[in-house]
Structure formats: C-alpha cells, structure tokens
C-alpha cells in the first residue's frame, strides 16, 4: 500500500522533469502513469483549476443571492420575488442542460451546481415570505432530495457531495428538534452508487464512510431510545471502535484490488482510519474517560453485542482476504478484551490501568509507524509515528499519570522507543547500502 497513490499529479509533474533530464522516455512515463490510472498527457495540462475557479465563482453568485434574500427583500412584491427566483432557478438549470447537450460537461456541471443553490434559495424565500416556522428541516430535505438526481444521473461526485452534505445537515437538524430522519439511507445509497460508477473522488468516498458511521451510531441510539428520548450510551464507543477497525480492514482489502479506483480508495480509507484511531487513542489517554466508562451501567450491552460481532466478523473477513487476517484478529481480540474488562471492572480506581495501557498503546503505535516508515520508505508514516510519540509525551507532561514517578517511567519508555527506532534506521540504512 503506497501513499504515492494519493499524490498522482505530483508524480506526473516529477516525471515531466525526468523526461527533460533524459532519465526516462515519454513512453515510459506514460506507462508508469497508466499504472496509477492517470492519463499522462491530460494530467500535464490540468483543467481542474479552471473548473474549480468557475465553481467557486458560481458559489459566490449563489451566496450573494441567498444573502440578498436573507436581508428581507420587502420592497419587491411577493409574487414578483417568487416568480423571479423560481424563474432564475429554472433558467440556470436549462442553460446547464443546453451546455450538456453541446458536450460542455464542466460548464454544465457548474451551472447545475448554481441552479441547485438557487433552488435552495427559493425554498428559503418561500419559507420566509409565508412565515413557515414549522419544521424547518423539511426545507433542507426538499433541497437535498431535489439535488440528488443531478448527482446520480450525471454520476458527478461533486453534485452528489452537495446532496450528501445537505442530507447530513437535514439529518442533524431533524435530530436536534427530536425526530429520527428515516430517509437518510437514500443519500448514503446514492453516494455509494456514484462512488461505484463515477470517477475517483476521495472527498466523497471519505465523507460517505464517515456518514455511514454516524448514521449507524445515531440509528442505534434511536433503537435504544425510551420515553425520554434517544440514548447515547457507552456501548456506542465500542460500536465506533469496531466500525473503525472494519473500515481499516476494508481499506486494506480494497487497496489490493486490481481496479485503480479501488486501490486509491483503499489507501485513503486505511490512512484516515489510522488517523481517526490515533486521535481516539489520544482522547482515551485521559483517566477521567475510563472512570466514566467503568462507572457506566451498560444497559444496552446485550443489544450491542450482535452489532459488535457483525462488525468484527466483517473486519476479520476482509482482513483474511487481504492477507492481514492474523493482525486483524489480534486487534479484535485486544479490543474485545479491553471492552470486557471495562464492563467487568466496577471499581473506578482501576481507571489508571486502562489509562496506562492506552498511553503504552500510543507509544507502541508510534514505534510501529516509525518502523513502517523506515522499512517501506514512506515518510508520512515515519513522521506520523514521531508526531504520535511527541504528542503523547506533551499530553502526559501536562496531565501526569500517577504523579511524577509514573510519568517518568512512561517518558523512559518513550525514550527507549525513539532511540531504538534511530538505531534500527541506522542498521537498515547500512544493510541497504551493502
């Protein structure tokens, strides 16, 4: 799994320099680029910046219109205001359709994007003119749903991302006012469909993976709700951890597929799962969180167990198929052990043991990342490992474990890891040179 997959444009630029220097031929550069799923000649003359600037320009046009409406456009008669904004929405879309028919896809997409902004503004204006106070999320839902067919029909990741973002906004606003938004899977399934058939979009892919996780957690809270509303329980933490492991394992499996797009998605998902896991570990490196977890009642453990089994089984299955079965199984066993201990132990004074374990795990993760960075010559892993250890050190310096002696022991362990990594690097360099 090579992170260079995520830096293809930089690779093409570098190869152009290598051709000029006579290190490789143009045909060789084309062959290398093809291996990464990039058209070398097209990538040398990127048009993405033009599309992005046009899109941003249209975004500001849309924002200007929404601001104008937001400032209460009282001087113009109600009917004229409604007619104007509905007309502008239709005309913008039809203009987009005209460009699409003339094979100017980029301009058409930008105009459809703008038309959908106007559509949202029209909904907001209607709500304002008629003083619609009831259930404002409905307006956001109608906006999101109206945008969705454009992303699906054109297989446009960016229009689908707009729809998914609005869907998420609607999801959270609905939750805020006490409702459970049943229709959220529509946006998730649509995003998965576009990811399957459209060109690569890491932003849409990662947004979809995160949205599915959030949707799963909230849906379980709804399933576990009582007369007083939705329940966010400690079991959600367990489910979240298992979901991240599933993502990591799925990413590793994807990164070994033959399709260039799958491999790109696999690398990105593994990397972001790793980053998310490290951030979570930093949060769990504080004692008070473990105290709360130990003191928790775990009323919904029986409901959570089947979900945990399903998520862990999925992670192991993908791990097995990608050749990481033992590693994923070991992580599953370790996570299950920690969860069981947190449930079984009732004395919160033992929280410090979990805290020490979390900190040692951080240091060990840092060491493994440093080792991988050196062995695979991936600087990102190397510096992520260094950063993990340094930030752990900083956290423990401002928030001591068990007083000065405990922290001193931990700092010694970190010193050992860093010095060991340095020696290993020197040994590796010497061996490689020989």
């Amino acid at each position, binding site marked *: 799994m090579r992170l260079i997959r995520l830096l293809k444009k930089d690779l093409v630029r570098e190869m152009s320099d290598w051709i000029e220097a006579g290190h490789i031929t143009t045909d060789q550069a084309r062959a290398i680029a093809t291996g990464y799923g990039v058209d070398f000649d097209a990538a040398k003359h990127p048009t993405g910046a033009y599309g992005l600037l046009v899109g941003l320009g249209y975004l500001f046009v849309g924002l200007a219109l*929404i601001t104008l*409406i*937001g*400032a*209460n456009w*009282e001087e113009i008669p109600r009917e004229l205001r*409604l007619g104007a904004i*509905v007309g502008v*929405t*239709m005309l913008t*879309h*039809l203009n987009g*359709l005209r460009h*699409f*028919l003339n094979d100017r896809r980029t301009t058409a997409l930008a105009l459809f994007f703008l*038309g959908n902004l106007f*559509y949202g503004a*029209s*909904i*907001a204006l*209607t*709500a*304002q*003119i*008629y*003083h*619609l*106070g*009831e*259930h404002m999320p409905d307006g956001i839902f*109608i906006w999101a749903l*109206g945008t969705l*067919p*454009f992303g699906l*029909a*054109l297989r446009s990741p960016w229009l689908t991302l707009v729809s998914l973002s609005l869907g998420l906004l609607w999801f959270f606003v609905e939750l805020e*006012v*006490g*409702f459970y938004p049943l229709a959220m899977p529509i946006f998730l399934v649509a995003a998965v469909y576009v990811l399957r058939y459209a060109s690569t979009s890491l932003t849409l892919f990662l947004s979809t993976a995160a949205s599915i996780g959030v949707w799963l957690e909230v849906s379980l809270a709804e399933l576990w709700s009582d*007369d*007083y*509303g939705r329940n966010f329980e400690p079991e959600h933490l367990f489910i979240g951890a298992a979901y991240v492991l599933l993502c990591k394992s799925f990413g590793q499996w994807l990164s070994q597929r033959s399709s260039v797009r799958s491999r790109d998605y696999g690398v990105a998902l593994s990397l972001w799962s790793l980053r998310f896991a490290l951030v979570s570990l930093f949060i769990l490196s504080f004692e008070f969180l473990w105290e709360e977890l130990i003191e928790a009642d775990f009323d919904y453990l029986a409901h959570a167990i089947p979900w945990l089994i399903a998520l862990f089984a999925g992670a192991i299955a993908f791990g097995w198929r990608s050749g990481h079965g033992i590693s994923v199984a070991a992580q599953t066993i370790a996570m299950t052990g920690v969860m069981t201990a947190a449930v079984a132990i009732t004395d919160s004074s033992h929280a410090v043991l979990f805290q020490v374990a979390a900190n040692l795990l951080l240091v060990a993760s840092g060491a493994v990342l440093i080792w991988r960075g050196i062995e695979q010559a991936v600087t990102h892993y190397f510096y992520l490992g260094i950063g993990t250890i340094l930030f752990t050190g900083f956290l423990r310096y401002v928030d001591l474990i068990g007083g000065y002696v405990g922290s001193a022991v931990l700092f010694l362990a970190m010193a050992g890891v860093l010095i060991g990594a340095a020696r290993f690097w020197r040994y590796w360099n010497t061996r490689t040179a020989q």
Partner: protein
Amino acid sequence: MTSRKLLVGILLATILGQGVILIGMVVKAAMPLWVGQSVPVETVPVDPRSLLRGNYARLNYAFSRLPKKLFDGATPKRPGEVVYVVLQRGDNGLYEASAASLTRPDSGVFLRGRVTRAYSPYRIRYGIEAWFAPKVAALALEKDLADGGIAELRVTSDGQAAIESVRGRGTR
C-alpha cells in the same frame, strides 16, 4: 431510446420536478391565507435571527405547551406525532385551546400540529412560530410586542394555519 436521450429526459424531469415542488410549496403555504378562517390568538415573541432565512421573530403561544389534562383520550407517545388542538373563542375575542386529541375533530376550529416533546407539558409546533421582517421592522415589532401581542391566524378546515399579521396589544 438511447442512454443519452434517457439521461437528458431524467435531467429535464428533475428540473421540472424542482419547479413543481417550488410551486407546490407556495400553493400549500398560501392556501390558509386564501381560504382559511380568521382566528386571532395571543402571542409572545422572542427574537432570534435565522442565518439562512433573515430576521424573524419567534412566536410562542399558550397552546404551544399543552398539559396532559387537555387530552380527551390517548396522549402523544413520540415526537413527530400529529396532534389536533381545538380552539374556542374567549370573552375577549381571542381564541384559546379547549381540548386536544390525536384524532381529527369532526367540526369546529382546530389546529393541526406536531409533537416535539412527548411528555407533559407536551410541546407542539403548528408552523406559525416565525414572523419574518426586515431588520428595522423586526426591531420595531419587538418593541411593539414587549407586553405581548396578537397574531391574526388563518386556519383551514383541516387545521392548517398561516399567520396573516402580528400586532401589539394596543394597536389595531
């Protein structure tokens, strides 16, 4: 039909669909103003600002919070349930809640609302909780309504309501 023709058809249908939805929204919102019965009620304003929709006053009504005793039979169990609140004209000419139920009344003036808090006192929203106005007008209205105000509602026979106007207690 080629796939390109189908694609253009889908896009055209979506564009027209957006137009139909917008017009439908307008018709639905305007319907009580066109055919509804005039129902004056007492209101108390609060004054937030909507980032998306401009300045508005949020209006509270006595019937926004319903005690359990107002329900004839079954009470709401979950947020989102539809509730019908029967209004009766008081001696001062203003309408007040006299009963509530989960089933639609056969006659009389009633509002259709949705439960946002499913335990007593139940919190209900009717779609008449916001009054949009330009900033200067919103501030003037806020001053005018300092001691409470009167919202002139229009209510259809199926309980859908819209605000026609809002004024201070002393103004007509």
